């Protein structure tokens, strides 16, 4: 094996990524930026200027919208991070990583939109929790409280937390396996520090570099979510990303220009939030050192940890209720206030062809299958290229993988749509698959990288010394041994694809109806029972994919102890 090995493969992967991933994002951003400064020849706008920005700033409630966006995004991220750290400190000793992964899976698998739809019912003043409380509180009518769509965005923050805390927990648990946790903990405690303080003074600083990028992904998502903001967020005005989605769909064609300016502003908001995170990191490092050098050993962190654990458990409970409520609604006929359970049941929502869920399910499966297959192939080709060159990953390559997750979708998707229109592929499955793959690939790549690198290198060396060439080593040794992580990556790819809202909506020209686009549309309708069907399917599909990822290797490798029970 020489360094030349795999050069062709690596060049091919890089070319595909540059053209297929980097190109669209850059071009989409370019189109958006041009339109933001008044240049969009198709509209007859050719003179660059600040007109779009002036028009944007004259939209009533814009600044409230910006403030709301920053507040909900930052608060949701910070709270999620704090809760996840606190919970991790208490829970990591009590459960194995694989048990935790199984436990977190339903929350990770449920798309944001489905979770939001369920939460909207659970939390509403006339919702499930209020119905359970009504007899105790003596409420004849639902209380007139702003809980869901509240002007402060509390429901949105809560919704984001229900989804992001499990994600951060998973990321942290996997990061913890990379540091000598037990020894550190023992050493810290022997020096008289309480558990919580060891976490904050010793463990957290080691974990942070490993979870910084995922935290940035969470931050970028929280600042620019459309589907969650639409369903749970404030309505008058909404958060910026929702406001922009509406502007982009305005019948007045000229609104695309201020919408583009807003999209650029959305990008700037995320960049500013990243800068803030960086500053916070610097400050924490300074203060933290000062704190560590002080040597304080008070065990005062203990109650905080307990509070964090209780809050995380509450979040899980609410999330579980939300998922459960979707299924119950899909099976209900009449479920009026203040009944705790439906008065009458019916399978009509599942059986009605007008609902057309079979068509949406078919589209969803097709898109998930295609994007996952493409992403998995690319990821495997990339990792194999690294192996053959026997080279680690450069920092720029790592950044490239994360890029689509860090740039807000709305900042480049509409611009990209214009390009796809020129190519004549907008409104078709190809465009949607392409756009979705931009977001599926990073998750597949991130998921697969660690187990791939953890593969015992002697297996491939042994195979090479037995005369197996590079392709046989890949297909006969690596892929079968890595079946479990590969299928897990596929399940995550499926979950990410199923959850995509904006790319499907913009690129599919509304003609590619998926469970998610239909569920979000229906959530602004009056029939929770039909919404329940779509949202249940939407949440059930990724869950089925995870179950398959777990069961298939167990079946195929049922006689192989090492692989059968491999960690999830």
């Amino acid at each position: 094996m020489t360094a030349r090995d795999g050069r062709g493969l690596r060049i091919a992967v890089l070319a595909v990524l540059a053209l297929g991933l980097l190109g669209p994002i850059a071009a989409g951003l370019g189109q958006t930026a041009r339109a933001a400064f008044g240049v969009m020849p198709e509209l007859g706008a050719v003179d660059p200027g600040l007109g779009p920005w002036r028009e944007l700033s004259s939209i009533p409630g814009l600044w409230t919208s910006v403030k709301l966006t920053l507040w909900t995004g930052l608060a949701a991220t910070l709270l999620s991070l704090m809760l996840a750290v606190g919970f991790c400190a208490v829970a990591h000793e009590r459960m194995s990583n694989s048990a935790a992964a199984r436990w977190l899976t339903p929350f990770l698998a449920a798309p944001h939109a489905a979770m939001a739809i369920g939460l909207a019912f659970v939390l509403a003043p006339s919702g499930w929790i209020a119905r359970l409380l009504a007899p105790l509180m003596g409420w004849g009518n639902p209380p007139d409280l702003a809980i869901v769509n509240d002007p402060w965005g509390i429901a949105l923050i809560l919704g984001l937390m229900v989804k992001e805390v499990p994600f951060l927990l998973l990321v942290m648990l996997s990061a913890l396996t990379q540091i000598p946790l037990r020894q550190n903990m023992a050493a810290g405690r022997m020096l008289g520090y309480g558990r919580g303080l060891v976490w904050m003074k010793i463990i957290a600083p080691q974990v942070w570099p490993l979870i910084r990028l995922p935290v940035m992904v969470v931050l970028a998502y929280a600042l620019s979510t459309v589907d969650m903001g639409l369903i749970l967020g404030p309505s008058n005005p909404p958060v910026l990303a929702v406001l922009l989605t509406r502007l982009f769909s305005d019948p007045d064609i000229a609104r695309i220009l201020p919408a583009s300016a807003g999209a650029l502003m959305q990008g700037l908001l995320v960049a500013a939030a990243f800068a803030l995170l960086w500053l916070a990191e610097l400050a924490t490092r300074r203060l933290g050192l000062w704190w560590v050098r002080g040597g304080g050993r008070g065990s005062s962190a203990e109650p905080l940890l307990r509070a964090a654990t209780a809050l995380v458990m509450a979040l899980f409970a609410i999330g579980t209720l939300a998922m459960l409520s979707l299924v119950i609604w899909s099976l209900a006929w009449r479920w009026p206030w203040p009944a705790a359970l439906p008065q009458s049941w019916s399978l009509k929502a599942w059986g009605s062809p007008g609902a057309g869920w079979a068509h949406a399910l078919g589209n969803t499966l097709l898109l998930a299958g295609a994007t996952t297959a493409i992403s998995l192939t690319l990821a495997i080709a990339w990792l194999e290229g690294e192996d053959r060159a026997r080279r680690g990953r450069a920092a720029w390559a790592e950044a490239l993988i994360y890029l689509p997750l860090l740039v807000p979708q709305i900042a480049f998707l509409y611009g990209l749509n214009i390009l796809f229109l020129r190519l004549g592929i907008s409104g078709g499955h190809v465009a949607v698959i392409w756009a979705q793959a931009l977001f599926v690939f990073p998750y597949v790549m991130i998921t697969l990288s660690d187990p791939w690198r953890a593969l015992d290198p002697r297996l491939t060396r042994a195979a090479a010394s037995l005369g197996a060439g590079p392709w046989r080593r890949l297909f006969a040794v690596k892929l079968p041994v890595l079946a479990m992580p590969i299928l897990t990556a596929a399940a995550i790819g499926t979950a990410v694809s199923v959850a995509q809202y904006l790319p499907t909506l913009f690129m599919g020209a509304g003609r590619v109806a998926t469970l998610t686009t239909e569920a979000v549309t229906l959530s602004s309708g009056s029939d929770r029972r039909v919404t329940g069907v779509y949202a249940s399917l939407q949440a059930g599909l990724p869950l089925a994919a995870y179950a398959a990822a777990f069961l298939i290797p167990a079946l195929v490798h049922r006689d192989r102890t090492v692989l059968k029970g491999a960690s999830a």
Partner: protein
Amino acid sequence: MSLCLTDLTVRLKKTPPLFPALTLCIEPGEVATVMGPSGVGKSTLLDAVAGLLSPTFILSGQITLNGVDISPLPAEARRIGLMFQDAVLFPHLSVGDNLAFGLSRTVKGRRVRRDTVQEALTDAGLPGMYDRDPASLSGGQKSRAALMRTLLADPAALLLDEPFSKLDAGLRDEMRGFTFTHIRKREIPTLMVTHDPEDAEATNGPIITLSKAETSR
């Protein structure tokens, strides 16, 4: 067939060679032993011969197999077998399929290949274990299966990387005997790296002690 190393050195870019230039010829059936302190580059030497050297290393000198320079060839084309401390059986394949993976392509026909593997299993004291999960074998059984897998690939030369260090003392003697008997029987030139003087004694072959290169050529 003989394996010859001529003026072989390995170095990282811009650093002196790891060990002084090595020249050595191993005859068919002969086992040459390389000893030396940790970090001197014994495993790197084996990687260099096997063709598994990381590209950050620079190799100079010649490696010839029966007079043919094999250094430009990729690992899988060199026909050099490699044995590790651990057996490194593929966990997804049965014991028999592990051997079949190694079995040379020149052996053709489903039936013939299976019989060859069965025979090798019997030879290794593992009769009827074709369908066993490798994880269920004992340490000694794994080592024997691994050696058989390597031999079935019909290697022109063999590299052993501390092959017996992880075995119990009793098992170690048995495994040495088993390994060297097969090497002599098949007349394979073998290069072994070890810490254990007993390994070296058991070979009755030449012993080279590597030391850190003091001077830069």
